[in-house]
């Protein structure tokens, strides 16, 4: 079981309130991602749940029981750190065994659990090595192994993939998601990378300056961002925003349209512009267009290969039903 509730949780460092009163429900078995730009308080929030920091006010409940004043060790949570935080003086086996040893699990049971974790994570051949002899991805697996042997109520991940190179990151992303499906244990995952959030989460919590901007499934956030911040943060490339008379025509202060919802034509369209850089990815082409009439730079996503060149004059047309409308305060209309 791993249902976690935050009730009016506040965190202050001295006089600075990094997390204003915050409520959040995390259901058992859910994969929740905290996402936001650096300094938004997402790691602090995770550390509050872990018990590595005290809350300044409010309550944290785990499975309905008050855990606010429990030490980290007593919360039955396991954490995977950004730096992996492996014990460098212990072998992989001892690293994975450490939480079991601390919990006083008997030796045979320790061996059994280590063996099964090692098998699941492809670490069987490395059990007698030290962390220093492993690659980044292997260290990451050891850190995960150390977390799963405890059979915790929930897993906490603090930007676990940010030290890996791009190719490994994609692989580990799949492994962690797969692990979640297999264990069906609550996971809370912190990242600044919206792609990780979109691909892994059941539920995304978008944070900015300690405030929850929106909570929802990846597609909810994609389809109906509640404000300009979420709209701009979720989705890649970023949503295009237009103010002024085009927005006024939609009874809004700002309108937003995603690059994939803009049609590009060489002959005719709603906005005219000049092609700047086009990024050819093969499967898609991102065309950056400097529009006329002061609308600024717009990004368009075109399927497949597109034959446009720097300096070409093109025309853009947004899909009417995919336009997002926001008021002066940036809230969705």
């Amino acid at each position: 079981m791993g249902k976690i509730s935050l009730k009016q949780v506040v965190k202050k460092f001295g006089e600075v309130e990094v997390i204003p009163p915050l409520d959040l429900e995390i259901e058992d078995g859910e994969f929740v991602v905290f996402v936001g730009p650096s300094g938004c308080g997402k790691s602090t929030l995770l550390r509050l749940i872990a018990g590595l920091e005290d809350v300044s006010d409010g309550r944290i409940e785990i499975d309905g029981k008050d855990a606010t004043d429990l030490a980290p060790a007593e919360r039955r949570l396991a954490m995977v750190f950004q730096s992996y935080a492996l014990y460098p003086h212990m072998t992989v086996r001892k690293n994975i065994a450490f939480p079991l040893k601390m919990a006083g699990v008997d030796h045979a049971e320790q061996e059994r659990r280590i063996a099964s974790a090692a098998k699941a994570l492809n670490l069987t051949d490395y059990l007698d090595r030290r962390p220093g002899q492993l690659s980044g991805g292997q260290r990451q697996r050891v850190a995960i192994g150390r977390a799963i042997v405890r059979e915790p109520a929930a897993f906490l991940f603090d930007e676990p993939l940010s030290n890996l190179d791009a190719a490994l990151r994609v692989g580990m992303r799949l492994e962690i998601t797969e692990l979640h499906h297999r264990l069906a244990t609550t996971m809370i995952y912190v990242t600044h990378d919206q792609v990780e959030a979109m691909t892994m989460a059941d539920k995304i919590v978008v944070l900015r300056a300690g405030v929850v901007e929106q909570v929802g499934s990846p597609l909810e956030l994609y389809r109906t961002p509640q404000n300009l911040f979420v709209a701009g943060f979720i989705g890649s490339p970023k949503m295009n925003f237009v103010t002024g008379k085009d927005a006024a025509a939609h009874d809004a202060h700002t309108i937003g349209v995603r690059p994939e919802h803009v049609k590009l034509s060489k002959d005719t369209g709603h906005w005219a512009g000049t092609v700047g850089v086009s990024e050819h990815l093969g499967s898609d082409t991102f065309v950056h267009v400097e529009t006329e009439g002061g609308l600024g730079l717009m990004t368009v996503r075109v399927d497949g290969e597109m034959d446009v060149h720097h300096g070409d004059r093109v025309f853009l047309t947004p899909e009417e039903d995919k336009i997002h409308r926001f008021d002066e305060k940036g809230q969705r209309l």
Partner: protein
Amino acid sequence: MATQHSRAAARLMISPAVILLFLWMAVPLGMTIYFSFLNYNLLIPSAHNFIGLQNYDFFVTDPAFVTALVNTLVLVLGVLVITTVGGVLMALLLDRPMWGQGIVRILVIAPFFVMPTVSALVWKNMFMNPVNGIFAWVFHLLGIQPFDFLAQAPLFSIIMIVSWEWLPFAALILLTALQSLDSEQIEAAEMDGASAFSRFIYITVPHLTRSITVVILIQTIFLLSIFAEIYVTTNGGPGNASTNIPFMIYSQSLLQFDVGGGSAGGIIAVILANIVAIFLMRMIGKNLEA
């Protein structure tokens, strides 16, 4: 970055060290200050009356005080000049490619590990002795009159001995600093067209400045309280030609049993050291933030 619980544990674990050092600072120093206002001589056990600043007046107006103060400054400055200049040269030399670098480094650092009484006695007897010393023999070979170093130039001789002890320290620290210089920086400067000389002036020297300052400050702290070398070689003499402030305080309080006067001298020494300490602490404090 911590919880109430760990903060409480931290306070508990830090307190023995803090309490001990606080007592060590406060109690004896307080007593020294107290004694310095008393007419207190161990030979006259009865009278401990309060005499205000008389001890200070007596200590400072003693002609020996001026000599001791000058000797202290000459000793500190002399050793500093020799060891920092020598240390920089030595560091530059040792940083160059050569065979047996590790062994040379070991040879150079060795004097630092020799206890002060041993180095002072070895120099005094086996090198500076006007009859049997190596220097006397070398002078003889060169046809120069033998020279009684410790009698004719006592302070200079002590400066030589102390410099021999501290040169390795300066050299080792500056060498470490030199080796920590990012080679990419030098290469970048080379790509920018800087000559070897400009690279030294604009990159190596600024990089070393901080370490040189640290060397100077730390040595000053130790050099201000040089004692053993004087104690076993000249005993402050001849006359008081090689008496520095610590030695003067020692002789005032433990040889002449003048507790009050010695205490006043002690406070003066503390004030002198504090002036240096303030600069040193600023340096290290800055480093702590980095």
